[in-house]
């Protein structure tokens, strides 16, 4: 339970865990040197595979398996680190970027070595200026120290790392949109297949991994894949950075081993609900995840599989907690508005549907709801995510559109009476919204 992998250094050395000096002083880059000297690229990849490491960006895909998809002989290959962290409720990659950037860089170097990659990119969301500065300084230090660049540590292995700053678009966190963006295009997701491992950046094989995922790699190589795999439940191996926010008493990032209950997580780790108010609902894994409610879920387990079995996902590890004061319709509206704002707009159902859902909720919130709106909300959702099942079916290219239906389904499932209560008894005639000229 107390095992820490990612946050040890920053906890022990709060003032300078981000510097090269401290990193070296705490054993940093030794693993890289050792791997370059003693291990073949395949050995490194094998350890990652054995670790059962699963992606921390949202989809929880086994990292070693993804790496195995790279076609044998197409070169160049690219490694792209997803540091676009924009899923509401999530702020754990920022922690790793600001507090321990060398850990990420060593992870990148080890991964690149394993994957026969000579060019890596880190795509940092534009709003993370401080994180970008810290990471860039770390990159500069690493080049100077010979941990990046040509012939690392006297070996044949060379690696260039480029930091690319985003500019305000959540959808660029979706891996193919991210690659489009990195190529200087609009950040629009591409049709999969082909997956990036086959056809990614500049149409070449590309591995996209999350910051947290790759930050685990130095520990895995230092301690062995098996050691990692034996931490926590088998299919949720290793530790996990959970971002707690909302009405918990002590919001923040917590590195935990999965397998505890939600009660433990919210009441022990998160310090309970502020002012000891009753817990009403929580979002278990970022804004895209269907909600949980205490009656049903408080004593279920926090593991990737248990959460999935209960119809939601661990996603990016963002837990958003709502107490009894929360107007759930307003909360759903906030979430839907986010997705509508962030839709890239290429798919008809997402472009039109998410805004439509937002407007219906907006009407309900302003006292203009109609009885039919409840079914309408569900049916419009159904037209974006057929059957409203979990994991979601999609009429769209990427999961952003369907994500917008999660809050709707959640409030209709658990709080339908509260939604109904907001519909005026006397349905007034609709006050048509002013039509605004967009341009």
């Amino acid at each position, binding site marked *: 339970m107390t095992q820490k992998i990612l946050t040890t250094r920053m906890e022990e050395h709060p003032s300078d865990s981000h510097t090269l000096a401290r990193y070296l002083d705490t054993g940093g880059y030794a693993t890289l040197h050792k791997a370059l000297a003693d291990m073949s690229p395949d050995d490194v990849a094998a350890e990652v595979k054995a670790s059962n490491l699963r992606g921390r960006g949202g989809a929880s895909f086994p990292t070693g398996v993804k790496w195995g998809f790279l076609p044998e002989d197409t070169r160049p290959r690219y490694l792209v680190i997803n540091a676009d962290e924009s899923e509401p409720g*999530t702020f754990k990659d920022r922690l790793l970027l600001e507090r321990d950037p060398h850990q990420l860089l060593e992870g990148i170097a080890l991964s690149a070595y394993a994957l026969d990659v000579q*060019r890596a990119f880190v795509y940092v969301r*534009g709003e993370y200026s401080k994180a970008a500065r810290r990471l860039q300084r770390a990159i500069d230090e690493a080049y100077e120290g010979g941990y990046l660049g040509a012939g690392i540590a006297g070996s044949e292995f060379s690696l260039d790392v480029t930091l690319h700053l985003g500019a*305000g*678009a959540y959808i660029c966190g979706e891996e193919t949109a991210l690659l489009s963006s990195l190529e*200087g295009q*609009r950040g629009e997701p591409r049709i999969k297949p082909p997956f990036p491992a086959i056809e990614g950046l500049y149409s070449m094989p590309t591995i996209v991994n999350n910051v947290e995922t790759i930050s685990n790699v130095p520990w895995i190589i230092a301690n062995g894949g098996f050691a990692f795999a034996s931490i926590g439940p088998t299919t949720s191996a290793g530790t996990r950075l959970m971002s707690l*926010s909302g009405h918990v008493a002590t919001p923040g990032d917590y590195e935990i081993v999965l397998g505890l209950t939600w009660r433990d997580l919210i009441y022990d780790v998160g310090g309970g609900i502020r002012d000891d108010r009753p817990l009403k609902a929580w979002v278990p894994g970022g804004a895209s995840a269907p909600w949980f409610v205490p009656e049903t879920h408080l004593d279920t387990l926090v593991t990737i599989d248990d959460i999935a079995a209960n119809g939601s996902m661990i996603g990016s590890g963002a837990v*958003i907690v709502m107490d009894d004061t929360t107007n759930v319709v307003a909360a759903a509206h*906030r979430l839907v508005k986010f997705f509508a704002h962030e839709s890239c707009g290429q798919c008809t159902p997402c472009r039109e549907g998410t805004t439509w859902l937002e407007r219906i909720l907006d009407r309900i919130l302003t006292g203009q709801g109609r009885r039919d709106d409840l079914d309408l909300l569900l049916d419009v959702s159904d037209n974006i995510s057929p059957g409203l099942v979990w994991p979601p079916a999609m009429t769209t290219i990427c999961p952003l559109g369907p994500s917008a239906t999660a809050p709707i389904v959640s409030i209709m499932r658990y709080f339908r009476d509260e939604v109904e209560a907001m519909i005026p008894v006397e349905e007034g005639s609709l006050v048509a919204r002013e039509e605004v000229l967009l341009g």
Partner: protein
Amino acid sequence: MIPTWSADNQERATALIAQYPEKRSAVMPLLYVASLEHGYVTEEAMREVAELTGLTAAQVQSVASFYTMYRRDPVGNYLVSVCTSISCWLRGADDLLAAIEDESGTLDGEMSEDGTFTIEHVECSGACGGAPVLSVNWELIEGVEPDKGRALIRWLRDAEPETISADEMQVLFGGRRSFEWAVAEPEGAIAPLPAFAPYGTAREL
């Protein structure tokens, strides 16, 4: 090269283009540099980036308009971005935004008449643990209660800081953070753009 750009920015543009296997990839960084040159992404700026990357101006416009941080209208000296996404909303972001609007006399989405402020609400800033949060020229402050927000606006108006630094503002106006930030950073933002040395937008305090 764009001869009207400062020598520094010309140099930056060359370096940024050289970073990528394909020129087109430099569009985003160059849009930041061009914003620095022109104050925001003007038509001229898009034409220049088009020239540097071998695209048409329409293509650059297409990219620029996709991302919210490329402003295509004039923007105040201080771009105040209040996060109103779910976690901040749960912790009073709407009140913070109202206080900011009121104190600055500037509505959400608008620039103050004297050009001091642009106020906007933004989606999740990735600082939910310190909610409610805002940023000034993309320098973050966490745990900002409405009164502190007002004080921040007054401070910006009175002190007119040339370089905006998260660390300095956090001490003055911030509260709970998502996590400890460790030591103070020596750099800050000189424009309503993310402060990042390779783009020329950062300066030593």
